[in-house]
């Protein structure tokens, strides 16, 4: 009975939502739907917010990747929050799994190909991950995917060395320092410019590695942070303790 009720409710919700999204004449074009109003000065603009992002991001931020410009500059405070969400989740996992006693499950020795292959592949994984987060302001990618790629290298290590963990203490120190760097870069904006997370470094030459002010610095911090956090989560889930 409960299953039938649940099915009826979810189907009804699905039908209502589909009906709504089909019939509503949602403006798909980014130019329509809004000449915004500045809530402080009450000035009306003659374009929408996404239009302005596309038009001005080069001049405002110096980043050739518009997505990065939006994520790290225009809405940088949200990104600090997202980094903190991941940090909170990793801390929570560590809090719950830290001192739980585990049974000693006998591990199979990994495949010979995996063992040898990991030695060959691992350096490339780390290099690709680093490349992705260092070039976040120029090419697709950035701190989050770059860090995740590096963490996949950690996963490979954990799979190959079945009865060993990762150096938890070092990961924790890296995570802390990277997080503090991000917050500090933001706070220095209050000192050297006027606002939190405002850019205070020269924008440099467009499309060059040394450009876009604080964006590469923030993405490097995020890359280290995400890599060490995801590594810590994997280590905690494996449950082998080693300093």
């Amino acid at each position, binding site marked *: 009975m409960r299953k039938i009720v649940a099915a009826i409710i979810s189907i009804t919700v699905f039908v209502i939502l589909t009906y*709504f999204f089909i*019939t*509503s*004449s*949602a*403006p798909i074009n*980014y130019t329509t*739907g*809004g000449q*915004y*109003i*500045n*809530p*402080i*000065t009450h000035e009306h603009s003659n374009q*929408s*917010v*996404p239009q302005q*992002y596309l038009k001005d991001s080069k001049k*405002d931020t110096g980043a050739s990747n518009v997505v990065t410009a939006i994520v790290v*500059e*225009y*809405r*940088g*405070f*949200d990104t*600090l*929050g*997202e980094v*903190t*969400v991941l*940090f*909170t*989740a990793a*801390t*929570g*996992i560590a*809090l*719950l799994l*830290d001192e*739980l006693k585990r049974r000693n499950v006998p591990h199979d020795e990994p495949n010979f190909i995996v063992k040898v292959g990991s030695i060959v592949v691992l350096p490339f994984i780390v290099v690709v991950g680093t490349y992705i987060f260092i070039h976040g302001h120029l090419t697709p990618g950035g701190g989050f995917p770059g860090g995740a790629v590096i963490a996949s290298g950690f996963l490979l290590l954990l799979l190959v060395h079945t009865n060993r963990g990762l150096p938890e203490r070092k990961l*924790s*120190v890296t*995570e*802390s*320092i990277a*997080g*503090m760097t991000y*917050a*500090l870069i933001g*706070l220095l*904006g*209050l000192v050297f*410019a*006027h*606002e*939190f*997370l*405002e*850019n205070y470094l020269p924008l440099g030459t467009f499309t060059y590695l040394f450009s876009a002010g604080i964006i590469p610095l923030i993405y490097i911090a995020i890359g280290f942070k995400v890599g060490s956090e995801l590594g810590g989560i994997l280590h905690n889930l494996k449950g082998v303790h080693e300093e």
Partner: protein
Amino acid sequence: MVSIPPVLLIAFPLFFAFLAPLINMVSKKAVKPYTLFVLLLNSLFAILLFLEVQSNSVVYEQLSGFYPPIGILLSVGYIGAILAVVINVLAMVVYISYFGDVENSVKFSMIYMLVTASSTGIVITGDLFNMFVFFEITAVGSYGLVASMRTKKAFEGAFKYIVLGSVGSSFILLGIATIYGYLKTLNFYDIAARINTMPETARLMAFIFLLIGIGVEAEIFPLNGWVPDAYEGSSNRVASFLSLGPSKAGIYAIIRLLFTLVPIMSGFTLALILGIFTLVIGELAALKQKDVKRMLAYSSIGQMGLILIAISMHSKFAFIAAVFLMVSHALAKSLLFLGTRNYDAGTLKNPWIAGPIFIGVLSIIGMPPFPGFWGKWYLMLNLAAEGLWSIILIVVFAAVVEGVYYARFLFKGTGSDARSITKSEVAAIFLLAIMLVLIGIFPQYLYTPAVKAAASLLGGGP
């Protein structure tokens, strides 16, 4: 006078939470004083911010160097400033109770700081997506705090909270996407200025999506299945913290949604109906409970319903009532949750615990001269003035039910697992009781800002 950028209320605790593991490596003993220092600093900032709001009536701060809505705007009005002070000061007072405890985990303290910062973030932000991000931090941190006891009940409560919380988060995101799809903006006041250009159905859909998502955190009736289990499973201090931080942030988001984002009359009517259901069901369920923590949790739900009724009246006096009820609930519930573990028939004779608990109960059931009384008094006056006798009957009925089970709680003492109370817990309970008494005797210091908050919100401002 010192002018504090509101962003420091969020950025400093984040920075210090990132630093905490390093402090822990240097000295494990330093973690608790360090956390208390961070919370103290934050309370100080919150009070300075409140004073600044009192002289300027609203504080704006744009971030990243772009004017809104291109960049993110923090906007603190009266209601935000009041709640920022409540959340930060009370979080600090509740943290005092951790001193002298054997259990000492740096990770717990880090999550505590992060949840305090993100709850504060919800009440001072002026941007819809920014609010969503802070909701995420609050929710993820709260899951960890609830489960931190690592008992069966704790995991059950945390799991229910995770399921409902993630569904709620996706609904908030859907609501934000609907609004952004039409208006191409995320700033509260830009949305408020142009919400009428959205088609009727889309506006209603966005409203309902956001209400469902926020309702999980604000403990509104059909979405609060996690509340009793989560409060029962978590330790007393965590329950105390949850009832002062995240739930207040949730109510603030409801206020923002109703008054600023989608100010339609049918929205207020819907909120009123949900509030009545939440109140009646919460109080009746509390009456049946045998376990003290579950009873307090259901009583919390009932209080949330009452606050929601007061908000949805859309009038000045009722909103003042809502502010008093929120402050009363934050103070008294965190006091009761802190005290109950030690409260059974034996400790009734211990005046150090029984006295503050008695004060807390009196404030919740609305006895003068405590803030709960002022809240219910203003609400009744407003309801009578508008001639809504049926709602008055419901509220009085709920108050009677509340009186019955709190009287049973006081005289029979259904509490279990008594243990020796630490001095720090007594100190925290006493501080909370003193604040209750002070606000009850001098209500004008809360009344004046509450009037201005009501005037500003009813005028469509922050």
